[in-house]
């Protein structure tokens, strides 16, 4: 739901709502009903309730430009001890470069009933602290005094900001329920914003009007050049917003919480001329191409490339080879500092000197080098999983936090990233798999590229089980992992035998440490292969042997423990698991029971299970494949059912029994 705020075009949503509970919405005015309230009828387990949360944004003149004045007033009822944490308030603010935000006029109170009276305890200004989070962000923090179960707290503050491009999001939803949330913005005719509501379809309160009561003047007040103008006031509100419950397996809370975003779209000068800021992705694209820390940085990198590698020699190689050469070189010589970002904060020269940088510095540098050796390569701006997904109907730079590489190799586009040396050259890291990215090329239109892998990552386990004389077993296990699964093994298992032993040991069977061997750890184009030998006792009941053919290798628990789900299950990438076990039946035994075959195959999922017994050898084959990386809530129960089947088939036992002597 995206709207452009331009006067007169907007429909008015209804204001005809009957409110179940009408509490005062005014700072300092506490009703007895609020004090006496001991639970919230729509969510009786809630530890606290936001009675109201009101935000107001207006623009104030400051030296020919505007500052954003943001004002917030919040009242919270605390029902029990678990809710007391809401009395510790933190207000983040930004301070770096031209933006110097200030938090002012903080006021906070606690209201308690004592001996029949409502007693108010103020926060002392000396109890407001400032914490520096990093070079960009700080926060004001305070703990409201005299708070216990039953207390009402309220606080208000203002933030003055020079940041006009993105206004602060207004989140209507909290992790506790909200009775009344309202956001008002007083627009000036010079700045036009587009806005986007996420997580809800419409407002309970929506209203706008021209504030004709007091004209404001732009230019020197009352002077010759000054012109009168009026604020346009827009008001958005939601009531009875349920608590946001964070689920497992989601990308980012940012993708789901109910909120409204504002993004500067157009600036109008006094003379009536307008400048579009970001009304289209095309403009976003152009602004990047011309940016010193983006397009210009990539260009400079291209120019400097010949100082660090022999560009002439490389450019004579075939595409694929030249591409690999550049990627390998960057990965080997430059380190990612674990920071995301779409802009370089350094010059290309500094980056070459420092030998480390953020994702933009590394990948834009690589793009410059690729271009220099004759490979067509473009930046792809994207958003990491933690940062949230891109909303295409809301053009804004702010949605991006990462730069990837798109290179044309033999006429085909290859996505790449040079931050992780363990990643294949034509792959992007798992943290970056998040729907799509915007390619920054010379074309006029915005072009999106899918970041979702269309190939599965596989772990294959081959298990060969032999019986020893005392009916113990020895098994050779070979694990072969490809793609993202291989990357996982390379990073977490490595090729350090001690480390691997520690990790495997948690499976609780006897691993022979000396049998551990790893192949292809450093040959990242090839699958990661891990071999080891284990010994284990088997279960015997009477004359029969019970054996789980996949030992402890299959999952034993359904990871989806909830009955229902409101958000998609996001598995990052499609995954495939293959098991193949061969068992040499010991002398004098035969297969008494082999589990049933099973087969499931549809667009979502595939599973195959089969057994075979031939010449004293039992073969058990099992594979399953989650074909998608994201499953919507509507198919949650199916996915959960598939996991049940996996757990079930993965842990079924075969029974071997003594061949009876009667035939002899």
């Amino acid at each position, binding site marked *: 739901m995206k709207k452009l705020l331009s006067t007169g075009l907007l429909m008015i949503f209804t204001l005809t709502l009957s409110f179940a509970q009408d509490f005062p919405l005014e700072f300092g005015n506490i009703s007895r009903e609020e004090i006496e309230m001991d639970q919230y009828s729509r969510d009786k*387990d809630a*530890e606290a309730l936001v009675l109201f949360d009101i935000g107001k944004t207006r623009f104030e003149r400051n030296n020919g430009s505007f500052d954003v004045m943001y004002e917030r007033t919040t009242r919270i009822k605390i029902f029990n*001890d*678990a809710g007391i944490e809401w009395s510790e308030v933190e207000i983040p603010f930004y301070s770096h470069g031209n933006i110097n935000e200030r938090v002012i006029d903080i006021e906070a109170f606690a209201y308690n009933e004592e001996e029949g009276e409502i007693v108010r305890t103020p926060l002392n200004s000396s109890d407001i*602290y400032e914490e*520096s*989070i990093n070079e960009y962000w700080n926060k004001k923090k305070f703990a409201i005094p005299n708070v216990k179960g039953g207390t009402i707290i309220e606080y208000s503050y203002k933030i003055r900001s020079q940041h006009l491009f993105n206004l602060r999001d207004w989140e209507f939803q909290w992790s506790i329920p909200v009775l009344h949330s309202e956001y008002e913005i007083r627009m000036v005719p010079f700045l036009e914003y587009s806005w986007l509501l996420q997580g809800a379809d419409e407002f309970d309160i929506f209203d706008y009007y021209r504030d004709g009561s007091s004209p404001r003047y732009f230019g020197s007040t009352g002077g010759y050049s000054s012109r009168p103008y009026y604020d346009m006031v827009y008001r958005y509100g939601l009531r009875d917003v349920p608590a946001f419950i964070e689920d497992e397996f989601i990308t980012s809370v940012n993708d789901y919480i109910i909120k409204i975003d504002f993004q500067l779209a157009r600036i109008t000068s006094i003379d009536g001329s307008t400048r579009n800021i970001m009304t289209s992705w095309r403009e976003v694209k152009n602004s990047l191409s011309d940016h010193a820390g983006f397009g210009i940085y990539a260009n400079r990198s291209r120019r400097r490339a010949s100082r660090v590698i022999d560009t002439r020699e490389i450019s004579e190689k075939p595409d694929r080879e030249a591409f690999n050469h550049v990627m390998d070189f960057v990965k080997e010589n430059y380190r990612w500092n674990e920071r995301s970002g779409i802009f370089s904060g350094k010059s290309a020269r500094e980056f070459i000197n420092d030998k480390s940088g953020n994702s933009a510095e590394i990948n834009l540098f690589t793009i410059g080098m690729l271009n220099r050796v004759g490979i067509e390569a473009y930046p792809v701006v994207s958003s990491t999983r933690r940062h949230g997904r891109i909303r295409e109907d809301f053009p804004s730079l702010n949605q991006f936090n990462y730069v990837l590489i798109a290179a044309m190799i033999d006429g085909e586009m290859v996505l790449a990233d040079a931050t992780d040396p363990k990643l294949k050259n034509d792959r992007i890291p798992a943290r970056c798999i998040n729907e799509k990215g915007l390619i920054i090329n010379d074309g006029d239109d915005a072009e999106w590229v899918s970041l979702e892998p269309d190939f599965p990552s596989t772990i294959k386990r081959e298990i060969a089980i032999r019986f020893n004389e005392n009916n113990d077993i020895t098994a050779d296990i070979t694990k072969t992992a490809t793609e993202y699964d291989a990357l996982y093994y390379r990073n977490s298992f490595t090729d350090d035998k001690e480390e691997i032993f520690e990790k495997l040991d948690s499976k609780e069977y006897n691993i022979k440490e000396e049998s551990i061997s790893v192949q292809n750890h450093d040959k990242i184009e090839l699958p990661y292969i891990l071999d080891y030998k284990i010994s284990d006792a088997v*279960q015997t009941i009477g004359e029969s042997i019970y054996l789980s053919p996949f030992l402890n290798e299959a999952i034993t628990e359904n990871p989806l423990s909830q009955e229902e789900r409101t958000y998609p299950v996001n598995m990052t990438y499609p995954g495939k698991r293959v098991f193949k076990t061969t068992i040499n039946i010991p002398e004098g035994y035969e297969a008494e029971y082999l589990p049933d075959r099973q087969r499931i195959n549809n667009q979502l999922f595939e599973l195959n299970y089969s057994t075979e017994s031939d010449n004293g050898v039992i073969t058990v084959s099992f594979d399953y494949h989650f074909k998608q990386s994201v499953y919507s809530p509507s198919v949650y129960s199916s996915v959960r059912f598939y996991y049940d089947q996996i757990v079930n088939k993965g842990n079924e036992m075969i*029974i071997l029994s003594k061949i009876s002597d009667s035939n002899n």
Partner: protein
Amino acid sequence: MFSRCLVFVLLILQNVSYGQDFDAEVLLFERDISISRGRLIKNSRYEILINNRDGEKHTNVSIPFSSLKSVQNINAYIKDNEGEVVRRLRRGEITERSAISSVSFYDDNYVKEFSLRHNSYPYTIVYSYQETHREFFYIDNWSPVIASSIPTRKAVLTLELPDDYIVSYSNRFVDLPEKETTRNRKRYRWKADYPEPVSNERMSPPFYSFLPSVVIVPIDFVYELEGSFATWEDFGNWQHKLLKGAAGLPDDEIRRILSLTEGIEDDKEKIRILYHRLQNETRYINVSVETGGLKPYPASYVAEKKYGDCKALTNYFKSVLDVAGIKSYYTLIHAGSPVRKTDKTFPFQQFNHVILHIPLAGDTLWLDCTSKGPFNYPGTFNQNRDALVIDRDNSRFVSTPAMTKEDVAEKRKFGISYNLDRSATVSLHGKYRGAMFELLLSLERTFGESDRSRFIRNNILESGFNMESYSLYRPERDSQAIEFKYSANTRNIYNHQGNLILLNNIPFNLPRLERPENRKLPVQIDYPVYRTDKLVYDIPRGYTVGSDFQNHRVVTDFGEYSLQFLEKEGSIEVVKSMLIHSGSYSVEEYEDFYGFIKEIEESENSTNIVLMKN
């Protein structure tokens, strides 16, 4: 005893894995400390060899500072393999941020950070800086260990101070210092290394106790007030003086205390009433600036704001009890697990928590004023350790009571019924004391409903159990036990195989331990573990029991385990119990301890009951 074992271990290791490749190595760590005219200045210099990409994390440098400790003259550069300086730190590359400790709401700790890298290995990062301390009551807590996972080849600590300045120090795995005197100055020099990294292991004593270190304190110091570490009594007197200025309550607070306790004769009852009020009205918020690490906020601060940290809340409650005419003692303790033994021979600030000690006629109370738990319940956090009771000219160590097996008993009863789809419905009724009581109580008290049910589903339930419902009963206020019920569905109990059903156990949760051949550290168990389970399985219609029961019992010095079966009409009852004593065991004893735990694990994990189709 521990320390001797460790030295032994270190020597062995050195022989075995000499020449092993490390990701990084500290080649040299030098620190020069000097004291003149009451100012403490430390110059530190590090040379760290980075051997590969994995070692690169050691080039991320973080230097703490605060309002009492400034940092200046930060210099850093990188030398390549040829010894050539290839990169120098630029001033603009140093960033600063707050480093508020995890227990604080706010404090004035900050760090300066930077990172320097190179692209061909090996290379060496060299950095140095100076710290100046304004007020201090310890001189250094020095260790040659920069990171426990990498070795330090050489480390030197030099302390230079006026002749008449007296210090005391304690060395752990570090030789005694060389001492030198020049004109009116004296100089100590410690040399140490850390050739073979030690890694932590489960159920072991505090990790720090295995690392070399030197702690140096001044005998006489000025920290807020003049004080001394000559004896524990002296240190206690300094703490006592700090408290003196922090007593006293506003008049209407005094009036309320008196009216609450009016007419009550029994002191313990008075304390209980006032403690409940403390719990109802106050909360834990730690704000610590300057000397706030040791000096409590005054009682009037808590009376006004209704919050404070352990020092402030304890000091406040001491004042409350003073008003009620009850003598109580502010008491320093090192809380948490594993228990850290106080070095009584070395008077020094060795504590991290404050509680209240109240000797009554025929009874001794221990109150943790930050706790929302039962009255007079020191809990696993404070139990069984030395605490320094602060008393003028008579500060002394008193031991907090040890939890017995009855104090930690966890009793559970599982009713297990068979469903037509071969799953089982399990209903648990548990009654818990000890650590589990503390966990469940905090879930009940301080978690919101959605977090609580998620936590229970993921952490409390047995693995493979899908929760259907649960109830956690708010206990009587001062009860030291909590009841918990849940019902869950699982396919992990009735395991159909051909014509048989194997009945699976619901095993005790056991510690995961290193195998004896890999174990390097001794064992420390702070309080006993005592669990009793009763499982009642339905026998599905059409099945009969097809195996003999093997009752099992193990008794060792480490504890006991028993397993018993009882067949009833249509059901089977299994009763199990496990007791692990508290205790300390050497590495030599580890194999037996491991064997005991493994024997329980094997018994718990084997299928003991087979049902056959009729």
